[in-house]
């Protein structure tokens, strides 16, 4: 493509060769284990101190990592659907987050077995006292009993995620298969361990064509499946912590912000892991610039859809709707927390991302993704905890030790799982011709560069 530097074919070859000796760096592994240790300690402290907070935090954390994993995979689906060239170097990283889903699914299973009676006031065996004392915001409306019957509820949540994981599995199998084949052809044999079972027979280029075609056919299923299943998951798992409150925007807000979370996680991984993943030749400034623009769009959409929920509820002032917001926005123990979420997820990233240069600079970009990821973790916690922890004061120690411990533990598990996957497969989709820069993009970036030079 370019007259300077290595050719496209050379870069592809280098990316394949790099798989041979790749393993997760010791520092990342140590930090991951430290995070997991913090999580275990936080759980122990939490269960001894406040099971209500701890189960609420467990639910919020499990849901957060489900959203992270699925949101990242949906970014890969969007890249595929739009036939975008610019983000192709990020596609494998996006797909790698799918490995977080089974772990988060297990965490959800544990919660559903042991935690529902503590968290959901509609549960017949609710442990926090008489739910009618919370009425009309405690017990579920009578007609909803069928929908919120415990066994049916639990089976549904596990089923939603399992179905989505199945779709992800099919999509990723079609996507990485040709790359594994290309790697095996060049390196003289399979290198991806268990993942080599995804490797198709025949020529890598042919395998890419058929996989690409199959994934294209899957796009509507993936898109609609994600929107519907994630909305139902959000309505059931999160919105039902207050069984009387409802917002029909809630599902859409959650699944769109999950893609924002996925994009921030991909950006963080790509930039921090650039050397380890040998992404240097691919991760040009315009890639983070474009990803930054999408994160900006996601941030704005998060703010827009949040505002679209708050404004009509505030304006009409109907008690059954306002209660959920009042607790979070007006009670002194939660008001500061809500403001912090607004700053971390919207105000700070929005302000930072208006700068073109900042989106191309790696350190500020990483800082920005950290803000978004942390903010969205706090946001998911904010949706759950005020409805499960009914004390009048904010438990700072529990928050720092247990909530952040679970966050750190989850991140640690994510690092190990994603790192394990990326150690075995090419870090970019080497068999995908769209990995090469689109001619129009080359023209545009040359235009941008000439303007930047002025």
């Amino acid at each position, binding site marked *: 493509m370019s007259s300077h530097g290595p050719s496209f074919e050379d870069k592809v070859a280098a990316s394949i060769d790099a798989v041979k000796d790749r393993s997760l760096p010791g520092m990342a592994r140590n930090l991951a284990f430290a995070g997991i240790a913090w999580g275990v300690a936080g759980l122990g402290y939490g269960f001894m101190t406040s099971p209500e907070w701890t189960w609420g935090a467990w639910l919020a954390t499990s849901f957060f990592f489900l959203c992270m994993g699925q949101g990242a995979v949906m970014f890969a689906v969007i890249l595929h659907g739009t036939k975008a060239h610019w983000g192709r170097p990020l596609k494998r990283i996006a797909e790698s987050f799918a490995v977080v889903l089974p772990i988060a699914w297990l965490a959800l299973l544990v919660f559903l077995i042991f935690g529902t009676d503590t968290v959901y006031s509609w549960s017949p065996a609710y442990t926090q006292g008489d739910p009618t004392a919370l009425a009309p915001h405690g017990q579920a*409306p*009578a*007609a*909803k009993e069928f*929908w919120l019957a415990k066994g049916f509820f639990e089976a549904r949540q596990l089923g939603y995620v399992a179905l989505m994981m199945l779709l992800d599995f099919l999509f990723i199998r079609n996507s990485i298969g040709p790359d594994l084949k290309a790697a095996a052809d060049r390196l003289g044999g399979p290198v991806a361990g268990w993942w080599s079972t995804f490797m198709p027979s025949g020529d890598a280029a042919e395998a890419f064509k058929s996989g690409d075609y199959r994934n294209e056919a899957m796009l*509507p299923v993936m*898109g*609609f499946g994600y*929107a*519907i299943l994630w*909305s139902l998951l959000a*309505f059931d798992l999160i919105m039902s912590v207050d069984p009387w409150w*409802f*917002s*029909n*925007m*809630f*599902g*859409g807000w959650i699944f769109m912000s999950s893609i924002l979370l996925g994009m921030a996680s991909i950006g963080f991984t790509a930039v921090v892991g650039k050397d380890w993943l040998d992404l240097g030749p691919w991760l040009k400034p315009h890639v983070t610039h474009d990803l930054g623009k999408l994160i900006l769009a996601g941030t704005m959409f998060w703010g*827009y*859809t949040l505002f*679209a*929920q708050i*404004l*009509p*509820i505030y*304006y*009409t002032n*109907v008690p*059954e709707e306002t209660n959920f917001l009042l607790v979070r926005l007006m009670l002194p123990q939660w008001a500061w927390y809500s403001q912090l979420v607004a700053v971390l997820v919207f105000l700070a990233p929005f302000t930072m991302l208006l700068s073109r240069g900042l989106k191309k600079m790696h350190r500020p970009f990483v800082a920005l993704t950290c803000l978004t990821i942390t903010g969205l973790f706090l946001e998911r916690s904010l949706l759950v905890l005020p409805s499960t922890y009914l004390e009048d004061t904010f438990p700072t120690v529990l928050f720092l030790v247990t909530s952040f411990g679970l966050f750190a533990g989850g991140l640690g598990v994510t690092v190990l799982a994603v790192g394990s996957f990326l150690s075995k497969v090419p870090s970019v989709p080497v068999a995908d011709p769209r990995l090469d820069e689109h001619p*129009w993009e080359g023209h*545009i970036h040359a235009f941008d560069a000439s303007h930047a030079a002025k």
Partner: protein
Amino acid sequence: MQGTENPNRPATFGEANRDIIRVLLKPSMGWAALFAISTAAMIYGGWCWYLQLVYGLGVGGYNPPVMWGIYIVTFVFWVGIGHAGTLISAILFLVRSKWRTGVYRASEAMTVFAVMTALLFPVLHLGRAWQVYWFFPYPNQRYLWMNFKSPLMWDVFAISTYFTVSAVFFFVGLVPDIAVVRDHSTGLVKKIYGVLALGWHGTMRQWHHYMAAYGFFAALAAPLVLSVHSVVSWDFAMAITAGWHSTIFPPYFVAGAIFSGCAMVITLMLPLSYAYNWEKYLNLWHFEQLAKMCLLTSGILTYAYGTEYFVGWYSQNPYEWGIFYWRATGEYAWAFWLMVFCNCVAPLPWYIRSMRTNPAVLFIISIFVNIGMWFERFNIVVSSLAHQFDPAVWTSYWPSEIEWGVMIGSFGWFGFWFLLFLQVLPAVAIAEIKELIQPPTKAALGAVEAK
């Protein structure tokens, strides 16, 4: 017509100039017939409005509490149509999508004229239309101000802002092309286009400033695509009326607006492409992309319809669930199912590539979508008002002849301006088409001659 990713482009800048401006100021018989029909419809609408002014709003089919009828339905419809133009011209410009080039000029024109049409309705809706200026803040001795807390007032500001920005953006985009028309004209026509071209000569300096201004306007216009129809949706969502008070309305309305706007672009531009023999500029590649946009937004609408029903049931609010149940089974069920068919089912064939690259299928489905989107607004506006909280006031509404006449007049008004536009201004952006052609260097010219 071609349906490939690389449309058949003109070979030279001169060819693009000639192809696009040759249709200006030369009305064909077909154009004249359509113009006459549009003008007649507009005059008929004006006559109906005159009758309404003389006899009062009672000539409408209003039956309290249904005090909003098809004027509001059609108002929201036209605001929605006005969305696709800015989406195509501004947002697709910002994301550097090349397929916008062929269709964006006419889409922008469609936007401006659709918003002009929508802006008629607040006036048409007034019994004393001459007091329309009460909408705006103006100094007066009694310090009277309009009610800023009313979403209807937010609408006034949102739509007038959108109209201003869209019109300026439209005109800014036209300047280099008007200069081309000027350079190919003589006499009085040349003088008129010369004034409109604002002294454009295509110097480097002018292009530099022009591109900066265009990008700036695009960035300014893009958020308006979201904000305007969100504010229109709040006309409904801010009320406690069942079926209206909904948090999903803003993005649902925006998606619906883009859906209807893109379908209207197909409806208008597909015949235009054949009539003007503009297949080099407007071909199936463009219409396929528009069909994909429609598919995406149709999916969002289907999701929103489903979510409304699910949460209506999930909320166990008897009024909320009651209205949704009634919409699907009551007096207006036919309108509801027509909406579902047109917006959710009819676009499905576009998932098959051969269907979205077939001109007849494209055109027919786009008509279904236009009908479906009008009925969507009919469902929202009429059914909720006719079936409110107190069964004692449940009633039915059907538009009167006067209302139908005014609505038909609005289509005539839109057609009048759009057809006029086709005759006086380039409907395809000449300057941007040239960006896709090899520049007129000696080497390129040699290649063309050799061809």
